[in-house]
């Protein structure tokens, strides 16, 4: 990681703007989505073969590589912001969808209740337990499957936790004083990992024993005489099955805002301050003479609120746009994944998907077991060459 980039003090008003990622191609009007008072224009991508006469827009990896730019902007322990430039919205959206729904995570799935005399009923408590984020890297477990070896719980696909808490009165504290009870709150820190089979020998577990990422989540409240005794089985799953398997708090993107001043109709000097206030802080700068300019570095911070279009005195002074192929991603990790790793995981998931579909298509082409012959009733097509 970057050793040179230290903690920079942040501007009080808004996050310090990272380096600009706008390039010459950002100013190509074909890539601009218009943002107007009541409508948007030129929303869809038009770069397809046959759209522009005499231009070749067929897929070309070399051309794609030239236009592609990925720039990591800001990274913290929990989140990452990066720019993905030169791709279609369908590709950017695929990444977002996969990070949310298909990057695997580990969460508690089965709860065996031996005893629960608390006021919170078994199924509600089980649901709460499922939502507790665990600190285990999902790569160490195999997913449960419908059939075969991993259809049954074993030490390769399941982590076992015990939750055994009983509340009692603290004899050394007076009645009514704070701390009169012991274990009056069952917290995520009470989960005790019980290694199974070969799990004690796994170095990852030895270095960082499986537990909740946050030990202070209150799961239930108890009073003297009440107790909870449970066995919890955590498995690997994906967000599309249950939100507890979602590795992120948010994974979003937005397209890069573009603000273009009209040189033939400058902003009236006495209104410069009002003009600047129509935009997010730092986007518009006003010099001592009242001349208005756009800070390109900070343009990405604009919310494109369209406030400037509400004032008649600024009619024709400025155009609001967004760059269609410039995506600013923001991903907030909420599990064991480091934020910079999530995007790479999503690429892996996507390429696995493609490989699976490709194998099936190849089987169809050769009329193999996966192909038309296997489901003759479903398909009334004769394969080419058979």
């Amino acid at each position, binding site marked *: 990681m970057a050793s040179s980039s230290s903690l920079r003090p942040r501007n009080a008003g808004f996050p310090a703007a990272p380096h600009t990622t706008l390039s010459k191609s950002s100013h190509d009007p074909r890539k601009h989505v218009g943002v107007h008072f009541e409508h948007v224009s030129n929303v869809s991508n038009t770069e397809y073969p046959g759209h522009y006469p005499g231009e070749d827009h*067929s*897929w070309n990896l070399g051309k*794609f*590589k030239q236009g592609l730019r990925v720039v990591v*902007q*800001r990274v913290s322990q929990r989140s990452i912001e990066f720019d993905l430039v030169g791709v279609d919205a369908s590709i950017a959206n695929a990444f977002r*969808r996969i990070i949310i729904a298909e990057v695997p995570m580990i969460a508690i799935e089965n709860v065996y209740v031996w005893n629960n005399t608390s006021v919170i009923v078994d199924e509600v408590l089980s649901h709460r337990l499922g939502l507790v984020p665990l600190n285990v890297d999902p790569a160490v477990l195999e997913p449960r499957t419908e059939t075969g070896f991993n259809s049954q719980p074993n030490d390769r696909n399941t982590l076992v936790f015990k939750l055994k808490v009983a509340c009692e009165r603290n004899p050394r504290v007076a009645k009514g004083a704070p701390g009169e009870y012991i274990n009056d709150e069952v917290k995520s820190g009470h989960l005790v990992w019980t290694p199974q089979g070969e799990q004690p020998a796994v170095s990852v577990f030895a270095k960082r024993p499986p537990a909740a990422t946050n030990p202070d989540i209150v799961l239930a409240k108890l009073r003297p005489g009440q107790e909870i005794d449970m066995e919890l089985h955590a498995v690997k799953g994906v967000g599309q099955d249950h939100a507890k398997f979602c590795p992120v708090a948010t994974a979003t993107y937005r397209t890069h805002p573009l603000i273009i001043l009209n040189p033939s109709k400058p902003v009236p000097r006495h209104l410069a301050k009002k003009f600047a206030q129509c935009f997010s802080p730092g986007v518009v700068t006003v010099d001592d003479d009242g001349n208005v300019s756009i800070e390109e570095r900070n343009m990405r911070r604009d919310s494109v609120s369209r406030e400037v279009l509400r004032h008649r005195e600024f009619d024709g002074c400025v155009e609001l746009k967004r760059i269609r192929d410039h995506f600013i991603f923001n991903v907030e990790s909420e599990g064991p994944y480091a934020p910079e790793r999530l995007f*790479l995981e999503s690429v892996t998931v996507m390429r696995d998907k493609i490989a699976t579909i*490709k194998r099936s298509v190849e089987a169809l082409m050769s009329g193999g077991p996966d192909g038309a012959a296997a489901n003759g009733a479903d*398909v009334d097509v004769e394969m080419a060459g058979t």
Partner: protein
Amino acid sequence: MANTRPKVEILPGAESDLSAATFRINNESHTIGNALRWMLMKNPKVEFCGYSVPHPSENHIHVRVQMYGTPIPPSFCSSFHQTKFPDKLSSLQALLTALSDLDDLFQTIEGAYRQSLNAGNYERWDEKS
């Protein structure tokens, strides 16, 4: 769910030479559907491509691919099409090409991302939870 269905199936009604066909891809969604549609549309030999999720509670998508050279009634067939695309191309081949190209694309993006991350030219900041 004892799912023994193949990942990709060809729906009834496809042209016998597969110059136009609708594919059913099981256990997939908009994620792959839209990306695949875009890549197929980048193929100049593809006349039409579209995808749909036929029902929200059925976990599969339909991808329709029509190639230039699809047998269409001569009255609708322009001379341009007849001269430029005389042979009927397989939509299955186009699908396979699109999948390979998509894989190249994702590999390229991964490389670019790693490069930017390793260059370390970004701001590190401390986020309070």
